[in-house]
């Protein structure tokens, strides 16, 4: 088991190393540091930071009141569906969202391209995630706190400050950091909605330097900057701990303070408003469908891309889970032995793909392989492999806390019983099953939505559903784009729903 863990870690790191080898080995000169004095670089760096900061801040600030509504009004209709919708939004394939937003913007004659569109899309994806985290945190407030606050007759403001804020403070910070990193690394949205050089991010600039200019030294320099900023931040965020947002622990009804009067109505209407906002881009797909020329849509042309997308997703999810589980093995041991520094280092290594710019890794590997194999024929294999390496960090992050918990509770016991291999796995499985299944569903949906890697390695012959949407949307065939988007979204929703069903104990 332990050997499998080291091999898995080695493989994940190898992909990154080969990618950088591809970049460095290709040109004699190293990174082009003269770019540091170029106003173009200053502009894109400033824009990358600005959009990520705004996206993170707005997502968190907007999520907070909604999470409070969910907490204070546990009996609003369809609360669980709302939480499921939030999850769906967070993992929604970016091109489905882009299609929805483009149709929506067309309806209201709104200029989507540039900072507005990027912020809108980022908030749409990340705010629901923040809602779930905040909601979980609020649910963690013990009943005794509320009872005490009622006895002390604390007013709204005092309750907010003394009881709610302490429970949210650390996750708010973590969320800010996490969403910042996600948006800082965002690719498809910025590429599709950026609308030109004035709204380019580092991630897109790396892609452009490589694919547009074929300027390796410049791409290398940008990649290092990206890696330093995103990687550094990520390291900081991961020290803050990870958020519990997929939790299935449903405790019995807790005691909560009553909300009455205008506050009640305000909360209730903001709940429905949140529903509307989250559903709008999805509903827009129907508009896109109705408005377009329906006769141009052919179901048959979607079958193959759908099957390819599903197969690629399943491959990445199955292998991704196996790799994540295996590489957590040695890390769990470090955790049990209290080797904190080593543990943090290897945890970072296991999740580094989250910060090593996906573009650099893809393009680097592309260049490395281009001189060695026929990419037009074998590209799809690397789409599958790279997608796997991208989802591994997610799997690691979700599995890790549960496995640590298992070790803390049953580690000594299973060691004294000399449980190993299969026997140990059988004990572990019921304990990790809910997290395992939800994580599997999550990374399956995430890898099914990929366009970034496909844009580098894909070929027409292996067109996936998201890429098909990109082609349709890129050429403004909105009816086809909407239809394909609906299909992809329905698939994702179905997967999440099935797995959510599978993990809840049968009543």
């Amino acid at each position, binding site marked *: 088991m332990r050997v499998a863990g080291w091999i898995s870690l080695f493989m994940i790191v190898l992909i990154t190393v080969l990618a950088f080898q591809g970049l460095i080995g290709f040109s004699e000169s190293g990174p082009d540091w003269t770019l540091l004095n170029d106003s173009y670089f200053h502009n894109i760096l400033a824009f990358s930071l600005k959009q990520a900061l705004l996206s993170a801040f707005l997502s968190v600030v907007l999520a907070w009141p909604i999470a409070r509504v969910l907490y204070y009004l546990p009996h609003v209709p369809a609360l669980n569906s709302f939480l499921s919708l939030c999850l769906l939004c967070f993992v929604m394939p970016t091109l489905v969202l882009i299609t929805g937003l483009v149709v929506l913007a067309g309806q209201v004659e709104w200029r989507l391209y540039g900072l507005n569109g990027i912020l809108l899309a980022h908030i749409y994806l990340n705010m629901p995630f923040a809602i779930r985290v905040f909601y979980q945190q609020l649910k963690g407030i013990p009943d005794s706190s509320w009872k005490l606050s009622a006895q002390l007759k604390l007013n709204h403001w005092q309750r907010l400050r003394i009881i709610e804020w302490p429970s949210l403070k650390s996750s708010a910070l973590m969320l800010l950091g996490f969403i910042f990193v996600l948006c800082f690394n965002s690719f498809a949205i910025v590429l599709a909605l950026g609308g030109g050089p004035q709204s380019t991010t580092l991630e897109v600039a790396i892609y*452009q330097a490589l694919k547009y200019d074929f300027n390796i030294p410049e791409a290398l320099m940008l990649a290092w900057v990206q890696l330093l900023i995103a990687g550094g931040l990520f390291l900081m965020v991961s020290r803050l701990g990870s958020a519990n947002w997929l939790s299935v622990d449903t405790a019995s009804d807790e005691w909560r303070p009553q909300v009455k009067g205008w506050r009640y109505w305000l909360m209730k209407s903001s709940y429905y408003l949140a529903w509307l906002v989250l559903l709008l881009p999805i509903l827009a797909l129907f508009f896109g469908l109705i408005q377009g020329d329906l006769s141009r849509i052919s179901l048959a042309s979607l079958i193959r891309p759908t099957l390819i997308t599903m197969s690629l997703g399943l491959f990445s999810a199955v292998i991704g889970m196996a790799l994540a589980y295996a590489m957590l093995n040695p890390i769990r041991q470090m955790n049990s032995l209290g080797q904190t520094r080593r543990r943090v280092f290897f945890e970072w290594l296991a999740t580094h793909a989250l910060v090593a710019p996906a573009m650099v890794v893809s393009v680097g590997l592309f260049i490395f392989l281009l001189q060695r194999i026929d990419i037009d024929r074998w590209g799809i294999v690397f789409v599958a492999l790279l997608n796997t390496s991208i989802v591994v960090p997610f799997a690691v992050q979700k599995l890790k806390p549960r496995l640590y918990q298992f070790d803390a509770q049953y580690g000594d016991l299973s060691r004294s019983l000399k449980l190993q291999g299969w026997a140990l796995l059988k004990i572990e499985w019921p304990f990790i099953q809910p997290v395992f299944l939800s994580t599997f569903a999550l990374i399956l949906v995430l890898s099914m939505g990929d366009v970034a890697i496909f844009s580098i390695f894909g070929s027409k012959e292996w067109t996936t559903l998201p890429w098909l949407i990109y082609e349709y949307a*890129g050429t403004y065939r909105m009816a086809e784009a909407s239809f394909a988007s609906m299909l992809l979204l329905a698939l994702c929703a179905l997967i999440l729903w099935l797995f959510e069903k599978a993990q809840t104990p049968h009543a």
Partner: protein
Amino acid sequence: MKNQLVAISIFLVSVSTYAADLTVYTYDSFVSDWGPGPKLEKAFEAQCQCDLEFIASEDGVSILNRLRIEKAKTKADVILGIDDALIEVTRKEGLVQSHGMKLDGLKKELNWKDSDFVPFDYGYFSFVYDSSKIAKPPASLKALIESDASVIYQDPRTSTPGQGLMLWVKKVYGEQSPGAWAQLAQHTVTVTKGWWEAYSMFLEGGADYVLSYNTSPAYHVVTENKTQYRAALFEEGHIAQVEVAAITRTSSNKALAQQFLKFLISKEAQTIIPITNWMLPVIDGVELPPIFSELIIPKRIGFTPNEVAEQRTGWLKEWRSTAAR
């Protein structure tokens, strides 16, 4: 799950290992269902008894970029779709070889003498607008840039029209170009990667003007019977684009590549190209729909391929810095 994996691995292994007799790199709209690619492929394959394969990039400049990455490993025998401005850049990188053909049949006005590149169509970069919405278009590039009309154009790093606009601005504004770019950025809706994206967005009502060709209106008249799309004639003159093809230095099938280039400028191919790629034919005596004689014929301005080869990197940087502000 196991079955799935087995299925996938069979799926992957069964990828065919066949290679075409002649591989041609081109841009995506050229090989789209309504582009010239499929028809040319059929006509040429019938003639050569061989297998021709097109591999498409987003736009003309991307073809060159791909070739630069692949160098000697490239599968391409022919590149098709870069333009005259990129001729020297491509030649200096040592990516192509001499075509060894006599090019007598070409139109006199092209005055073509290049020993490596063969022209297959040409046109003038122009801003296209919908005359049912805009009654009086600007009469010059300066007027357009100083106006507040919404514009879509293509990225000069990936797209030959985008590069054409870069040359156009440089020719008209010279040292003042950075100011012009900044001014244009004020009313630019979006800068797209390829021509196709930009043009489709324009047709959906995304902007008042889109950078395209003087020949674009012909498409709408011939295939859709729509007469409202026009190209604006600018008094400073327009940059011409001659689209060219060449044999790669590493081609293992030069004889067939030559045959393909000959075919490209034959009457058969030249009759297909204008009404599928919507550009002007490079030989005389091709029968065309009447709208072709009504297109605007601008004054030709521009730089020599040598000037472009020397200055291009610097100009791109200038565009990038000023348009990014």
